[in-house]
């Protein structure tokens, strides 16, 4: 198609909306009637998928970070390999292996379960680097102060180091979280009827691709915007013990 033609098509689309009241009405109707199914997809799958995967992922990430900074070579190596594999392969490939590949060796996962596995492993790897850096950024004197009042390694970690490390890691972890919200749309590929798959299904039925994908995009954007507000509040809360100067 030439540039002229494409422009022409866009013009026609817009013209048709504004000059043809029936067309506009049809679009509004579809937008309205698909809103609830999309939201349902979000509430049933997108949001639970995000929350569950992020929680499991964070635990995995903390363990991985601790393994990375531990003095036991074996733990270090396992953690390195895990992070390297997850970061070095596309998420879509990982999901495909979990859902379409594993049945070949007799492991069959439900779409939702496979998605949880995939996203948790993903968050675990990416967030582990954030948490590792945050732990290493806490001055050595904090460990020493914890030791001199008699704390064990795990007590120092839990009471002194991780609370301070979490403050440092809120901005980068928020990024991970927001990416995850959007990445859950990839679960559509392994048959999870989350928000984006709903949009695909409705559009396949009425051919209004532009409308439905934009609508889904808008909803993702709203979620992410709300999350960035939460991030701001969290940062303020954690900043109460640092000098504002």
């Amino acid at each position: 198609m030439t540039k002229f033609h494409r422009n022409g098509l866009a013009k026609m689309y817009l013209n048709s909306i504004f000059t043809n009241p029936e067309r506009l009405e049809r679009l509004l109707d579809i937008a309205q009637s698909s809103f609830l199914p999309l939201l349902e997809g979000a509430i049933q799958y997108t949001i639970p998928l995000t929350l569950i995967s992020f929680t499991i992922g964070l635990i995995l990430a903390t363990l991985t970070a601790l393994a990375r900074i531990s003095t036991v070579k074996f733990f270090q190596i396992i953690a390195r390999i895990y992070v390297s594999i997850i970061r070095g392969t596309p998420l879509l490939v990982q999901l495909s292996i979990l859902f379409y590949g594993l049945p070949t060796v007799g492991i069959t996962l439900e779409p939702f379960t496979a998605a949880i596995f995939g996203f948790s492993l993903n968050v675990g790897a990416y967030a582990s680097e954030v948490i590792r850096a945050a732990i290493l950024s806490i001055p050595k004197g904090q460990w020493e102060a914890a030791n001199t009042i008699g704390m064990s390694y795990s007590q120092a970690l839990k009471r002194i180091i991780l609370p301070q490390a979490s403050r440092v890691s809120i901005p980068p972890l928020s990024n991970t979280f927001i990416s995850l919200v959007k990445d859950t749309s990839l679960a559509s590929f392994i048959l999870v009827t989350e928000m984006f798959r709903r949009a695909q299904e409705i559009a396949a039925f009425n051919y209004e691709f532009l409308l439905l994908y934009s609508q889904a995009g808008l909803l993702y954007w709203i979620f992410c915007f709300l999350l960035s507000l939460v991030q701001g509040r969290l940062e303020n809360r954690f900043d109460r013990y640092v000098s504002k100067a």
Partner: protein
Amino acid sequence: MIAINNLHKSFGDLEVLKGIDLNVEKGQAVVVIGPSGSGKTTFLRCLNILETPTAGTVAIDGHMADFSKPLPKKQIMEFRKQSAMVFQHYNLFPHMTALENVMEGPVTVQKIDRAEARAKAEELLTKVGLKEKMNEYPFQLSGGQQQRVGIARALALEPKVMLFDEPTSALDPELVGEVLQVMKELALEGMTMVVVTHEMRFAKGVADEVLFMDAGRIVERGTPQEIFDYPKEERTKQFLNLIQNADTI
């Protein structure tokens, strides 16, 4: 109270402590002086096993640690309880108020009931003159106040020995006095303490014994008068000249 025998510490090839022997009686205050890099900090840290000595033995109040073989974690923890360290840069926990800093050891380590730990922490903070500042975070306190919280935090665990590593050297001059005053009161109450400091007035007024350390060894020891007024070793004389001149420049 403290019996140190042939204590050695190396970092790789660098031998920092070359055989330290020292006995400190209960209730004594010992001041350690010496040039930068002579191993004073390392020596103190070894007594609290923040640094693991390479050889030698240390006994504090009958608890013996023999560093010629690796110590089990349990024993290190038990040994550490005998002493507590006050750091040059305070190392307060920034995410906790002054009160929470002091309560942390008793609550988390000694598993003392919160209300009881709180009462004790309030008492200690009052003792170091910070009754009004209990609920402030470290960043809201001056250096001198932070260091006094540091002392209260160490005291909360009721250690038999207090270790001070240049507790006033990071402070503005006008804040030094308030910290030294607290330390002096502790000494008068009979706390056994080992203090690395170059505060001559404190050493003269409070120390029972002064040690001069150089290049990983205790070169000379004696009463404050013996060391400051009649030093015998050439190196001690040179060092004292240096710090006294620095004061008058």
